[in-house]
Structure formats: structure tokens, C-alpha cells
């Protein structure tokens, strides 16, 4: 599963294991890394991606169990700051930055970065902000940049912002400013036994949804 899901997913899986007595092994890594491994023959049964693109890539290889792909989770994108702030509308980011930097995920490759770029473009701010963007390897690193005060502002998922007390949400990007943020889940073509299916069902079940919701994810 995507590494950024760890807190919530661990909780869900632990509950499921206790309930069913099955053992689930969760491998957390970047969505791209996992996708490549599945393509290269990794013995994975479920794939929970943070990126629709990577799920597409796996699907294109015909490695998904037919009809099991669904959007498990959603998320929202927020602008955060190091300095305490009250949530409000998206400000003029370039002006707010001054000579500081805007921390984001890699704008061309990390999903959060891609969404952020799209949002800024639709808000007409991208051109002004682009030279000021510090692209981090992943959302988590972007969050760290803001948390340490290295960058005054950053764009991350609402879930990340919620888990880090050292940052403050300045604004939430409007729904329509970027493509919907989705975490697709699917069983792989390899998955065989009933336990796999059971876990799939558990993840999509109500108990799990409640946990995910508590961690700040939206549920499409």
C-alpha cells in the first residue's frame, strides 16, 4: 500500500486480523515502486495505490483481478503554513511567500504535486508561483519542510496536515480546482484465496470506512 496510508491502514488491518485470525502482511512503499514490483511479478494480492496513474499502469498489464478496482478513498488538498493561521480562502501565494519557498511534492510525478500544480494552474497562480516551488520527494517531505519552518507554505493532503501539529491549514483548495484525489484499490490477478477477498471486503466495509474517515480521508 502507499506509504502515506500507514497510520489508518495499520489500524484497519490490525482490527481485521484480530477479528478473523488471519495474518495480513502490508508492504508500504511508494505507489510507483509497488506498481513496478507487481508488474515484475511480486506476490501481492491487493494493491492500494495513492495514484490513479500507477493503478492504470498495473491494469494495463492485465495484472488486476477483473472487476475489483474501486476507489477506496479520497482526499483533499490544503495549503499549510508554518506560522499559525486561520483557515480561509486561498491567498495570493506568491505574495505571501516573499523570498520563501512553497513546498510541494514533485509536481510532475508525485500525485500530491500533480494535484497541487493543477489546482494552482486553475487558480491562475502557477506562473507566479512556479519559480518558488521546492519539490520534495513525497508529500511527507514537503510537510517536513513546512514543519521545520524551512518553507513558510506548502501544499499537502488534508490528512497529512491533520497529523502534524507543527503546521497550520491556511486554506483548502476547492474541489473543482483539480482532478478528484482518489486512492484506488484492487485485487491482483494472482490473488487466489478467500482471505484475500475477505480483506478486500473488510477494507471496503463500513468499519474500515469509519477508521479512514477518522484519519481525515474523504470517502467517495
Amino acid at each position, binding site marked *: 500500500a502507499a*506509504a*502515506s496510508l*500507514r*497510520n489508518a491502514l495499520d489500524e484497519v488491518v490490525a482490527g481485521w486480523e484480530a477479528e478473523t485470525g488471519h495474518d495480513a*502482511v*502490508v*508492504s*508500504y*512503499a511508494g505507489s510507483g*515502486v*509497488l506498481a*513496478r*514490483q507487481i508488474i*515484475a*511479478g*511480486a*506476490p501481492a494480492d491487493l494493491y492500494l495505490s495513492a495514484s490513479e496513474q500507477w493503478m492504470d499502469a498495473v491494469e494495463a498489464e492485465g495484472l488486476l483481478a477483473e472487476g475489483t478496482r474501486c476507489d477506496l478513498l479520497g482526499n483533499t488538498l490544503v495549503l499549510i503554513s508554518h506560522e499559525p493561521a486561520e483557515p480561509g480562502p486561498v491567498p495570493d501565494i506568491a505574495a505571501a511567500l516573499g523570498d520563501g519557498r512553497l513546498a510541494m511534492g514533485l509536481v510532475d510525478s508525485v500525485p500530491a504535486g500533480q494535484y497541487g500544480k493543477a489546482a494552482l494552474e486553475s487558480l491562475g497562480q502557477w506562473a507566479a508561483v512556479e519559480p518558488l516551488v521546492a519539490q520534495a520527494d*513525497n508529500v*511527507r517531505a514537503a*510537510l517536513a519542510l513546512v514543519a521545520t519552518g524551512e518553507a513558510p507554505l506548502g501544499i499537502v493532503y488534508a*490528512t*497529512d496536515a*491533520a*497529523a*502534524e*501539529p507543527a503546521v497550520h491549514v491556511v486554506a483548502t483548495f476547492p474541489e473543482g480546482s483539480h482532478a478528484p484525489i482518489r486512492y484506488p484499490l484492487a485485487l491482483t490477478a494472482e490473488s487466489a484465496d478467500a482471505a484475500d477477498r475477505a480483506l478486500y471486503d473488510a477494507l471496503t466495509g463500513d468499519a474500515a470506512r469509519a477508521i479512514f474517515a477518522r484519519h481525515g480521508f474523504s470517502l467517495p
Partner: protein
Amino acid sequence: MTDWLSPEEWQAVALSLKVAGWATLLSLPLGLAVAYALARGRFPGKELLNGLVHLPLILPPVVTGYLLLLTFGRRGPVGALLDQWFGFVLAFRWTGAVLAAAVMAFPLMVRAIRLAIEAVDPKLEEAAATLGAPRPWVFATVTLPLILPGILAGAVLAFAKSMGEFGATITFVSNIPGQTQTLPSAIHAFLQVPGAEGSALRLVLVAIAVSMLALLLSEWLARAVARRIGARDA
């Protein structure tokens, strides 16, 4: 301290040690051979070999990991053969983590050993030859003991690197707790999660402690070896 780390974390520590140990041990003979070839050999393609050895240093670990995945993965050309012939699977096993660590640490090991070989006075090897010792015997009884400090240094570097390696490992064998989740993978995973810095820090401290022990051990060994060799002069 047992309850200071979760069982899963203990597993990661144990796995890291196992992986680093095996990676170091298994790459030693090859490292020695390659270092010897680079230091003393004269053959076409020497520069190529040299470059190849350095490759894992030059490439981002993810690339190396990806290349390993493509080659040694279950569908990779070599991986498939290994599986078919020996039933030996590397991908997503701790054995794969060993391979990844060994490959990443290889340039460091080779360079250290090579430097040591280059510092051995060939006149001593000549002297051994005039006493009737054939080349391999000379290597085993003269060159090898004299380069022990270099081998030790190489092994330490390789071990340390293996303890810290993660980019190639996670790309090649993923991050499966109890199977391929090494200490650095675990640390990295923690760092991906907001608010888990504490857990990460604990593991970092463990990693440092383990490696420091290894370092101290190696320094002590090196001193013992140096004493054995005594003054350099003969």
C-alpha cells in the same frame, strides 16, 4: 529494552543484521577477486569492469533496485533461470535484500581491497616465488595476510553500507515486515507517516548502536592484525 522496540522492530533489526552480514560475507570473495584483477591484472575490458563495479555508486539506488528487479525479478532473465534451475527465488525474499545490499556495497569493498593490494610490495611476492611457491599459494600466504587490514576496512564499509542501504532494497524486494523490511526500510516507512518521528528516531538509534559495535570490533581486529604484521619493514 525488549519492550522498547516492538517485535516487528526487533525483527527488522535482526533481519538487517542478517542481510548485512550475509551481503558482506558473500561479496568478500568476489570483491577480493575483482580488486585483485583491477590492481594487478592487465586485460582488455579492465576499464569496463572498473566502471561496472562503480555503477551502483553512481546510479540512484532506486535505479539500481529497478535494474535488479528487471534482471533478478521472477520475470527477469536471470531470476527466471535461477527459479527454474535451482528453485532459488530472490525477489521479495530476504535473499534479494542480501543481493541488493551486496551490489550497493560492492564498490566500497572493492576499492578498499584494491588500495591495500596496490600497497603490497611485489618484491615480497617475488621472494615467495623464488622459494618455489606458485602464484595462488603466494596470494594466500603473502598477499592475503598483508592486505587483511584493507579487507577488514572493505568489509566494514560494506557492512555499514548494507546496514544503511534501503533505496535499492525497497525497490527490488519491497518492504515486507519480517521478510524484507530491514532497519532502514522501517525507518523510511516511519518517516512517511506523519507523527512517527519518535519511532523513526528509536530505530535510528538502534542502527547507530549496532553499527558502532561493528566498527569498534573492526578497529580492534585491525589493530590485532597490525600488531601481527609488526613493523612494516622486512
